[in-house]
């Protein structure tokens, strides 16, 4: 009896030893294989880092036929991509980081340089505000709307002209207003303020389903509140730090990014009604206009709002390329844009009298004007600038002093 128990024990011990051996071999193998894979991954990661960064695809607009034969075009799109870095800016959230290039120059304050601007005491100062269209997407420094406005006004005005481009990509009219307020607060008073706002307001509402926010509000607030970086257990963090994980994760990210565009969150997906949203966009826009009006009276400057053109508006005969761009406009965006346009056209006269609509500016133009649905080629930029200059000239700046009284001057215009 005693001997048989001992035999069983031996057998059991033998089985346990075999199991242990198998588990040990499997675990050791797993460790060796993982270490080998990680070493290979480290080499691949190193190699990929050494290779030129090709993660950003070229901007689709760079393929516009407008740029064919333009010597500066490839340099511009290269610099455009390089200059897209933003930096945090108080109250308006972002501005472009300083940049020095052949076609794009951004000064230390994050303001795109206007060639020929003669800024100094006694200059006729024009502050221009707006989003990427005003900033000059698709155009080198010398072919932006402010650059053409500078050129045009310099020919019309007897004093040195200083056009300052406060346009920033993605800005709404509220950010333009804040920018103006900050400038006034700092003691910089313009003679004229020109706004090309509206598109950013509609985009922000399209994106968030609300109007009291700037563009990309969700992403920005998630970063601010660190919601985009959920804390993970140490073991996961350790795994994440390995080359093998980084490589696998990178590949999965690339594959999933290529399969389909992520479904855009829009006011429609958020179940926000278009009508009230469009009304709210117009309310906010006209409210800003009203505040600018008050500031203009208080500080003594003229202001003009220009409601931006859109590829779907006006009656320009579109080229094939433009037709493609028009067809690519997201239907939900187009619907909100239509409703907002309609609302602003019917309601502006009571609140914002200095507003000019540019919808029909390109009606008689047959050449390529649109780079996408909102941005225009330098040809379009010139036409917009000329219209702005004409408006500034036709509606002479109110001859009011800082306190709002008539200063009795003859105005800045050259007398033929």
């Amino acid at each position, binding site marked *: 009896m005693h001997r048989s128990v001992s035999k069983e024990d031996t057998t059991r011990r033998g089985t346990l030893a075999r199991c242990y051996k198998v588990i040990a071999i*499997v675990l050791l193998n*797993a460790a060796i294989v993982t270490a080998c*894979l990680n070493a290979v991954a480290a080499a691949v990661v190193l190699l990929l880092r050494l290779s030129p960064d090709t993660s950003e695809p070229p901007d689709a607009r760079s*393929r516009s036929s407008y740029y064919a034969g333009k010597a500066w075009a490839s340099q511009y799109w290269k610099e455009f991509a390089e200059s897209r870095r933003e930096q945090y800016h108080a109250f308006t959230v972002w501005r472009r980081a300083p940049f020095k290039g052949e076609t794009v120059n951004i000064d230390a304050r994050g303001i795109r340089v206007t060639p020929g601007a003669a800024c100094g005491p006694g200059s006729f100062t024009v502050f221009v505000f707006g989003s990427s269209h005003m900033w000059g997407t698709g155009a080198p420094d010398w072919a932006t709307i402010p650059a053409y406005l500078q050129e045009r006004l310099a020919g019309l005005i007897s004093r040195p002209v200083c056009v300052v481009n406060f346009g920033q990509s993605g800005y709404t009219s509220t950010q333009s207003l804040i920018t103006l307020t900050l400038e006034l607060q700092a003691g910089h008073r313009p003679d004229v303020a020109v706004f090309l706002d509206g598109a950013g307001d509609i985009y922000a509402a399209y994106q968030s389903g609300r109007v009291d926010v700037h563009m990309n509000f*969700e992403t920005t607030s998630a970063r601010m509140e660190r919601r985009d970086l959920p804390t993970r257990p140490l073991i996961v963090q350790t795994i994440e730090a390995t080359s093998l994980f980084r490589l696998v*994760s990178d590949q999965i990210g690339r594959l999933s990014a290529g399969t389909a565009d992520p479904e855009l969150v829009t006011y429609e997906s958020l179940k926000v009604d278009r009508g009230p949203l469009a009304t709210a966009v117009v309310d906010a826009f006209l409210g800003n206009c009203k505040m600018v009006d008050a500031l203009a009276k208080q500080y003594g400057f003229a202001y003009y709002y220009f409601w931006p053109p859109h590829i779907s508006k006006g009656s320009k005969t579109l080229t094939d390329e433009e037709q493609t761009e028009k067809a690519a406009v997201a239907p939900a965006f187009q619907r909100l844009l239509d409703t907002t346009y309609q609302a602003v056209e019917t309601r502006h006269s009571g609140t914002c009298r200095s507003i000019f609509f540019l919808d029909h500016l390109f009606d008689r133009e047959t050449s390529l004007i649109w780079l*996408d649905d909102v941005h225009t080629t330098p040809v379009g930029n010139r036409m917009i600038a000329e219209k702005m200059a004409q408006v500034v000239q036709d509606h002479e700046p109110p001859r009011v002093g800082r306190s709002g009284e008539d200063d009795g001057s003859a105005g800045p215009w050259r007398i033929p």
Partner: protein
Amino acid sequence: MISTIVLIVVVLALWAGAWQIESLRGRQLLLLLGSYVFYFWFGGTMLAMLVASSLVNFRLGRLVRTLRLEFLWLAVGLNIVLIAAFKYLPPILDAAGSPSQADLARRIVIPVGMSFWTFQALSYHIDTYLEDVGQPSLLEFCLYMAFWPTVISGPVCRLPEMLPQFRRTPQFSRQDLSDGVLQIIQGVCMKFYLAQLLASGWSRGAGVTAGFDATVGWGGLDVWLLAVGYGFQLFFDFAGYSLMVIGVARVFGIRLPQNFNRPYLSLTPAIFWTRWHMSLSFWIRDYVFRPLSAMRRDKWWLYVSLLIAMTLFGLWHGARWTFMLWGIYQGLLLVGHRMGQRAKKWASIQVPPALGACLAWATTFAFVSLGYVFFRASSLAQLGTMLEAALTPSSYRHVVLPQAYYQLTITVVAGYFLVAGGSALLRSWRARYRAADKSRVASTSLIPLTWADVPYTAGATVDFLATSLWWWLAPALVTLGGLAALATYIQSARIATTPFIYTLF
């Protein structure tokens, strides 16, 4: 995604259960049930169509067995009318233009895999008429038609290959399991990684899809690289899928016909068509080309038969002019090759064998690749523009595709040939090592002492890795699979914020 996984688990469980059943009919019934559960996932109507087609074809098969030609024509005609109604009627109605017809066209949905299972039914009828292919029971015939690994996209099977396997008492084989799992892994890597990578690109917008669909003004070089890239994308996608299907069946001890056999190493278009989508290619050869070419003995008729067969091959892919032109192009290539062979004999041209092989491979590769422009072009206008660019010398002065596309395509293509060539070399070294180890005529030390030892050392390493395959491959797969799952979870669990559309501006 989760529902797909659940479905596959259920089907696999049904199949695994079927393998435990002693009774042949019980086993076949459960196998069929598994296949129908799988197919039902695509829709009840589609399953009803498959069942109806199986029943009708089974009955027709019985009639064809009487060896009366009219029954064969009836069976062939019915199947062709059915597939034509689903596959070619909607585009015809759509092109007709009237709103009601276009609306009707949109409502006609072709049952998944219909082209494949209808072709299986056709081959059954023709084989039954020409030779004795064995008499399947209704259950066996339905299983042949609905066999779940192949029902969606082939390979197109033949009844004589499948029937004995359905009747065999299943035996679990570790070799089948190992081979099957290896084929599945290989297929997954090809379909879900390489094909996807070529389609979407290493960086966004720098893949085959964007190259064809979002680019204009191609240069000559762009067209060639797109053609090569798409050819490889298609190869990885379909060959990968076929490998997965063959692997799944293999795990259960069922051997399906090979569908791709290193087609890009072919030296002639004729060889290429014995290695690319082999199950369909052989089907067309056996049931279209051979009967047609046998009708007359003239050389010109042989060429006409080739053209007709390949045009039908093209049209099988869908009712599009580009598919038809692709078929005609491939037919012309085959005719051109045959005429070239005759001309070579007649002119008695002598070329060194190695140079001849290189030239033959390069010519075949170039012409076959160019053919994919026909296959992939979204319209005749695009096809014309791309061919014009490829054939106009001045268009080679500029390229519009991003550099990243060139790097990716060249790397993947070079990698494929390197792996294909390297694996053949390693296999031969392994064989040399084994022979040397057996007879102990050469050094088989771990570290090569001379250059002559390199093949033996490499062969020994390959032999060790092959004999201990699952000891290292299983941990590697578990590690990679775990990391991929974690990465997918982390990426999908990222906070859902509005996309940063600032970049639009």
